[in-house]
């Protein structure tokens, strides 16, 4: 080992601390069924939540940029900025690799709000602009307890800033589909067709009956297909009363961009 033995216990201790005070339990689990607007406080009425949800959903469908709103009671001893980054990272707001997610986090009891921009959005909504959105749109409304208006106006500005930056790109998903189909074909050839051919030869050679190989692999294949079907069936069932439903967060990452304020 490279380090003297005195340091080792300290390292072990630090490691222990990091593990024991892991952060997971301080953050609500990602909503299931997935939603973009999550009010854990009951500050917004059901209709307001639905309106915001439809607005953000429409935007996410057309541009693939995911803007999410979360209202909490309190963020406890965390900095609201730090809490926002970790929550955004854990939920994975924004697309993977594109990191085009934005989280508007408000802690109602703390009277604090923060707009966290994903790594891919830092250029479109720089910190200074995020600060302006907070000071000019959110804080004045929140001071008068007009939470819906504040969020509505803030998202309007964000949409304007971000429009044109990311388009919902079908090209990439198509490419992915082709890859998946090829993989499936390869899978079938390797594990279903080849064993069948091999088994036939075996039978011709009078080396015993059919091997278990085919049945085994077909059953795995069937099980996969079935479970896949089950999953999509579940998603279908989750349709909410409003127009469409949100497909889920994509695994975006947050690097510390954004700004906040308190009212």
């Amino acid at each position: 080992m490279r380090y003297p033995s005195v340091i080792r216990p300290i390292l072990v201790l630090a490691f222990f601390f990091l593990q024991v005070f892991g952060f997971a339990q301080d953050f609500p689990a990602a909503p299931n069924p997935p939603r973009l607007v999550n009010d854990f406080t009951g500050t917004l009425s059901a209709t307001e939540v639905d309106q915001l949800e439809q607005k953000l959903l429409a935007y996410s469908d057309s541009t693939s940029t995911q803007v999410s709103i979360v209202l909490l009671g309190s963020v406890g001893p965390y900095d609201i900025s730090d809490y926002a980054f970790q929550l955004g990272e854990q939920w994975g707001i924004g697309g993977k690799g594109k990191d085009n997610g934005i989280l508007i986090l408000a802690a109602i009891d703390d009277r604090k709000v923060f707009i966290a921009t994903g790594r891919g959005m830092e250029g479109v909504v720089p910190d200074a602009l995020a600060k302006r959105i907070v000071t000019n749109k959110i804080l004045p409304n929140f001071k008068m307890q007009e939470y819906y208006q504040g969020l509505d106006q803030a998202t309007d500005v964000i949409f304007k800033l971000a429009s044109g930056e990311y388009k919902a790109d079908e090209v990439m998903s198509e490419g992915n589909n082709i890859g998946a189909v090829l993989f499936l074909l390869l899978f079938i050839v390797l594990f279903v067709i080849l064993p069948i051919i091999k088994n036939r030869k075996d039978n011709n050679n009078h080396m015993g009956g059919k091997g278990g190989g085919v049945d085994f692999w077909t059953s795995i294949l069937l099980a996969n297909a079935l479970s896949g079907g089950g999953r999509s069936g579940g998603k279908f069932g989750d349709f909410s009363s409003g127009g469409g439903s949100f497909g889920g967060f994509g695994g975006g990452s947050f690097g510390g961009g954004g700004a906040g304020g308190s009212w």
Partner: protein
Amino acid sequence: MKKILIPVGIIAVVAIFIYSKAVGTYNQFVQLEEGINGQWAEVETQYQRRADLIPNLVNTVKGYADFEQETLTGVVEARSKATSIQIDPTNLTPEKLAEFQQAQDQLSGALSRLLVTVEKYPDLKANQNFLELQAQLEGTENRISVARRNFNESIKGYNSTLRTFPNNLFAGWYGFGIRSYFEAVAGAENAPKVQF
């Protein structure tokens, strides 16, 4: 003759298994170490970004003729000291990390003194240019803490891989050692309570 072949075969299989395991483990360590290096580069980038903002900040503040010179020179000196310390990621010893940390903390202290002093100058506080610089500075501090957390996470992944059996045996052979954290963030030891 055939009797010899069986043990030889077993030995060969075991040898191949150990060899591939050893190679796999080595490569895993290398990848984790590269991850750490990348995260460290990110930490330094964000600190550099903060240092780059300071000349602008100082110039904006300087415009206010009666602004306390002492505070300004404090920031400038702390900045030049902080930027002079760069650590090669392959050489992240606890001592070097502490040195880096200390220089950056001095700069943080000087900056916060500056921001406190600004409170006495209402004109400056309302200056749009200053406000935006302040927002950028806050954003940079946030990025620093995210980069530090990611760095510590990658150290944690590396260290826990290194210390688990049988990786610890291989690590000894290859000379991979435990790496040190970039100091736990103050306040991390209070078990936080959050209500949703």
